[in-house]
Structure formats: structure tokens, C-alpha cells
């Protein structure tokens, strides 16, 4: 078994130090207190600052605990903030794919729709923002289940007798089937639903990530199965590409570096 990770131990020590006393310390004070080289302490502080656990006062240069630490128990990213940051990319995805776009987050075992862009054909459509969708039958829900352990646990708690609600004969039925499918989602980095939430309806979705790769939501398109899928019944590769590009662009804006 590997030993403790030194930089995490040091980061924890810095946070404990800042949580004591006045809570405002300069770089030298922090480095001296912990017996670290200034460069080492600075590197750790900058990383903590990036994730929001530490803030630096612009005028004095002193460090203090960040707002993100105080809100650690509540939602990491405000859903209205998520919409605001994603709105231009979601519009671009709708324009490129020709399909409706939704962004969803997890809420008590369901998908909460936080943003919705109409399919660009000017047909009559209703705004879905604030509505709930099933997790196991939608591409957005599957992405959230695949990458958010809390969402998966909540779904498990909500389902009676281990049975998942059936919308069509193609809806995923058991948790075992679900686990296999989610492994595939994690392997490919995107999810789809084909005739699972309703016959003739399909969707494709990909994860939106924040700092450190934490999944904060999922973004996807949905529409008629014959438009979303090729003749073999699989989602069209060009559409999958558009969805993944758009989700990655939002993730980059939110500070996820590697995805």
C-alpha cells in the first residue's frame, strides 16, 4: 500500500493553520510555520487558490480560507451560474446539430433540467427548465450516473425492489444491466439513449467538468431517433463529436484542464 501523499498532507496543514487565529497570513509566515521552502508553500497555496479553498487579499497579499471551503457541504457550482457559463456553447451546439440541447444536473435521483435550447426549426416548443427527467432512461442521466457516485446511490435508494421504471421495452430494467452500461459510458466518455425514454426518441450526452475533473453536469442533444441515429441504430458519429466538443468547451471555461 502506498504511503501518504506529502503534498496533500502539507495542504491540509496549511488549511488548519489558516483556520486558526486571525486567519490572514502572508506567504513567509505560512512557510516558516510549517518549515517549508517559500517556493513549495507558494505552489501549494496557488493550487488551493485555484480550487477556491484559499483566497488571497489583493491589497495585502495575505492568504485566508476561501468561500468554497465554507460551502463545501452545499452545491459546488450554482446551476444558474452553470447555465450562464454554458449558454453560448449550448446555442452553438443546437445550431450545428440542428437538435434541441439540454443541460442537466442531479437532483434527488432525477435529472434537473437547468438549461434548454430549442431545436432550431422554429416549431412550437416549450421551455423545459426546472423539469425533472428520469436518470436511467436519458443520455444526460446516464452521464450523471456514470460520473457522480451520489446520483447512482440516490437512484438505487429510489427504485423499489431493485426494479427500474419502464418507459418502453428498451428501457434498462435491472441495476446489473445498468452497471454494465455505465462502465461503457465511462470507457467512451459519452452516453446515449435510443427509444428508451419514449419510442422514436433518442439522445446523446457528455459530461461537463469543473476543476480537478469533477463532473458538475451533463450536456446533450435529443430528437427523433431517425435523425440522431444512423441506419444501424447507433448515434451518428458527427453528432457525438459535436456534443463532446461542446461539453469539453464548457469544461475548459469552468477550469477543467485535462478534458
Amino acid at each position, binding site marked *: 500500500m502506498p504511503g501518504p501523499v506529502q503534498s496533500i498532507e502539507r495542504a491540509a496543514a496549511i488549511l488548519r493553520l489558516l483556520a486558526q487565529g486571525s486567519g490572514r497570513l502572508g506567504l513567509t509566515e505560512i512557510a516558516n510555520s510549517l518549515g517549508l521552502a517559500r517556493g513549495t508553500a507558494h505552489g501549494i497555496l496557488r493550487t488551493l487558490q485555484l480550487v477556491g479553498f484559499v483566497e488571497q487579499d489583493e491589497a495585502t497579499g495575505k492568504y485566508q480560507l476561501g*468561500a468554497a471551503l465554507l460551502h463545501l457541504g452545499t452545491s459546488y457550482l*450554482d*446551476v*444558474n*451560474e452553470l*447555465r*450562464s457559463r454554458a*449558454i*453560448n456553447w449550448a*446555442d*452553438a451546439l*443546437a*445550431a*450545428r446539430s440542428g437538435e434541441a440541447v439540454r443541460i442537466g444536473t442531479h437532483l434527488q435521483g432525477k435529472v434537473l433540467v437547468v438549461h*434548454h*435550447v*430549442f431545436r*432550431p*426549426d*422554429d416549431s412550437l*416548443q416549450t*421551455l423545459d*427548465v*426546472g423539469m425533472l427527467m428520469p436518470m436511467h432512461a436519458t443520455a444526460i442521466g446516464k452521464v450523471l450516473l456514470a460520473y457522480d457516485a451520489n446520483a447512482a446511490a440516490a437512484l438505487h435508494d429510489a427504485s423499489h425492489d431493485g426494479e427500474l421504471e419502464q418507459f418502453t421495452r428498451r428501457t434498462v430494467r435491472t441495476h446489473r444491466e445498468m452497471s454494465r452500461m455505465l462502465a461503457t459510458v465511462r470507457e467512451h466518455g459519452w452516453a446515449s439513449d435510443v427509444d428508451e425514454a419514449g419510442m422514436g426518441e433518442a439522445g446523446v450526452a457528455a459530461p461537463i467538468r469543473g476543476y480537478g475533473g469533477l463532473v458538475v453536469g451533463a450536456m446533450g442533444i435529443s430528437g427523433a431517433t431517425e435523425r440522431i441515429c444512423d441506419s444501424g441504430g447507433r448515434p451518428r458519429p458527427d453528432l457525438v463529436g459535436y456534443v463532446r466538443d461542446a461539453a469539453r468547451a464548457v469544461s475548459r471555461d469552468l477550469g477543467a484542464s485535462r478534458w
Partner: protein
Amino acid sequence: MTQRYVMSIDQGTTSTRCILFDQRGRLVSVTQREHKQHFPRPGWVEHDAVEIWRNLERIGPEALAQAGVGPGEVAAVGIANQRETTVLWDRRTGVPVAPAVVWQDTRTDTMVDELSRRPDAHVVRERCGLPLATYFSAPTVRWLLDDIPGLRERAERGDVLFGTMESWLIWNLTGGPDGGVHVTDVTNASRTLLMNLRDLDWDPVLLGFFGIPRAMLPEIRPSSETYGTARRVLPGVRISAALGDQQAALFGQTCFHRGEAKCTYGTGAFLLLNTGTEPVASTHGLLTTVGYQIGDQPAVYALEGSIAITGALVQWFRDRLGIISTAPEIETLARTVDDNGGCYIVPAFSGLFAPHWRSEARGVIVGLTSYITKGHLARAVLEATGWQTREVVDAMNADAGIALTMLKVDGGMTADNLLMQFIADVLDVPVVRPMVAETVSLGAAYAAGLAVGYWPDLEGLRRNWHRAAQWTPAMDPGRREEEYGNWRRAVERAFDWIKPTPG
């Protein structure tokens, strides 16, 4: 080589942006560069016109490089610009004779007071459709002519030229001192206080009123027409459109029919209503302005209602009160309660604009009780934008004699669903957001593409417009009237706060 793109230049108050659009009106590349804001004295706001030109020299080619295209693939370029900001420059050297005076600058307030007391002051509104105010260009030009020794003589000889930002950029793009074309478009000219709204030409009476020599003024051209060919930055590309930014947004939202309106929600908000080919004089505190003119077709006019504080109230809530940490959180906080709890905020931070025009008004929060939480205040913040929109729409319906049936919206605040629903509720008409948020840039691109045949006609442009979202009114009519009554009572309490200075 096929010409596959149209470029827009959006020369705004804080930055300049270049965007390439494809034939379906989709964004292909975006580049942007901010310029410095100079505040040399209280109330003064200046830009360095040379810095803005240098920024364009940089971001124009960058936008092409980002998309991997050459100037030969660009069918035309169109310009949208911050309105009323004034530059005077030397025709021979191309060097500005003074810093550009920005529309927010109030150095001419005393002069404007004096001018409005003149017995013939009524000619201004009659001939140009606008009230005498500091942010229009004519008082600024007069101030500069008085302030800089010898400038008036040089201007009378035509050695010093006047322009708003689009004139300055077109003159430089087409060669500058070496044969630069000195033009403006009808929408920009309509914001100077010097253009006759019906003739669409410089009005001798207004030139006389302000004491401005005609020799320094650009030629007034339609908004959509080729003015010349760029010799610098985008060599060989036709310059085929210019519009003030709010008019460009009207065009980008494809409000081509009489009765169609758009509202752009930013720091403040600008609502423009297409009133067709006849100017409508306002009796309800709105401005009469030119919407656009395509080639030799008749000009299309607009009524404009400006609201000083909309998004700025959310910023105040965030930065000054610190109740929220990001602007979108206002919606989260507002949703913690079901209504405003009886609380109203009138954000008359520097008076109220349309339709009240009360400079002595100041902001109030009314209806405070121990019941009120920060959630109710957040509701009141958002509702203030809704009710201010309603007041402007009421004024427009009264002036234009046609009732608005739908409002097209754009700008950053359209990401706020609670606000957009509230606007639909209080206006009792659907509110629609288009798929391309960059309506200012899109409008300039559309007007330029139209001039060179890249797009065939207005109907072709309308087909590019797609709704991204629509909010449908759902408020009980009785409740709407009661709340509107409360809002109006709150507004009355904001009036008469600043005492008139004696003498």
C-alpha cells in the same frame, strides 16, 4: 476564390471585437481586444482613438487567421459601434487633435443647460428627434472647437474632420491621409443632433444652432451600402455597412417589420421598436431615431427607450452589498422565496431615463418590513428590470399606436430564466431569445452581406433567425395590475430627491 464569410467589427465602449460569420449566420471565429478608459477629471470619459485603430489592426487579421482564411474569402465587412463618441482628427496626418470624448462624458452639461435656455432651442427636437443632452455629439464638437485654439479655423477649411467611431475606422481602413473615405451612416448621424430626421442630411439650422462648420462633417450614407475598399488591415475587402450598436442589434434580431421590437439587456437596457418608414415623434419620453437604411430604399425609423440601470443593479448587489458572489446567483437567491414580500427597488442611481427623464430622482427601496429577507431583495432586484421594461413598452405602445405582440431579447441577462419569465408576465406578451446571442455583430454582418449580395434579401436573413427559447406570460391579470400599481407608487417615491442648486 469563393467568398464564404462576412466579417463584423463591433467597436464598443470597452472593447473592439471582430467576428467572422458564415452564410447561415453562424459564428466562425471571434477576436477581441479591450482599450483603456481614461477619466482625466470628474465627469470626463475619454478613449484613445489611435489605440482603438491599432487594436483593429491586430484583431482583424487574427480573426482571419483563427478561421484559416485569407481576406479574399471575405465578401464584405460591416461595422457596429458605440454611439455618439466623438473624434476630431487632422486630415493630413491622421492624428486626432484631442482624445475621443465618450458618450458617457458630461463635460458639456453647463453648455447644454445654456443652449436649452435659448429661445430657438425647440428646433433641436423638431428637426433631429432627440432632446438636447450631453451624450449626443454636437455639444462635444462645439466644446472642442471652443477649447482648442485655432481649431475652428482648421475645421472651417476642412483640415480637421469630425467622426463617430465608424467614420474614424472607415477613413483609416480606406487609406487614412492617403485617400481615406470620410463617411458616416444615417443611424450614427441621427445621434449627432445635427441631422435632419426627414431629409437624412446635415441640417443648416442645426449646424447654425451649434456653430459647427459643415466642412468638417462626413458624408451621410445608407447603413447598408459599399463605402469603399479596405487598403489596410483587410486589403481588398469591401466595407459595406455601418450602424450604431443598438440599431445593429435591431437589424441582427431581424426586426424588419413595423411593430417589431428588441431589447438588449446589459448594464443598462435599450429597447428599440421599428416604426416603419415614417419617423414617430414621441410624447412619452422616447427618442426618435433612424433604425437603418438599405441602399437607396427609404430609411426605416425606430423609437428608442433607454433604461440606465438593469444589470448594473445586480452588479451592485454583488460588488457593493456582497450578498451574492456571482451575478447568476441572483436567480438562485430569488428562487428561495415565492414573491417580493411587498418590497420594491427603484434603481435611480443617477436619475431615471425613459420614460421619466428625471435627473433629480435617486434610488429607493420601499416596503421594508421585518419579514423581508435577502431572497425578497433579490426578487425586487430582478423585478426592477421587468417593470422598467414595462414602462418603456407602455410608452412605445402609446407613441406608435401599435401594441407590441412579442419582445425579442438579447444580452447577458437573457440567461436568467426567472427574469425572462417575469418580463413576459408583466408585458403580457411572449419573450423570445434568438439562437445567436451576438446580435450587434450579426446585425453589422447582415447589413454588409446584404449590400454585396452575399445574402439575397431580408427574408433570407429572417430564415437564419431561430428561436432558442421562449417565455410565455403566465401571471394573473389582477395580480399584474396590482403589482404594476405598487411599482409606480415606488417610482414616485424616488422623484425629487436631489434638491435643485440655488441660482
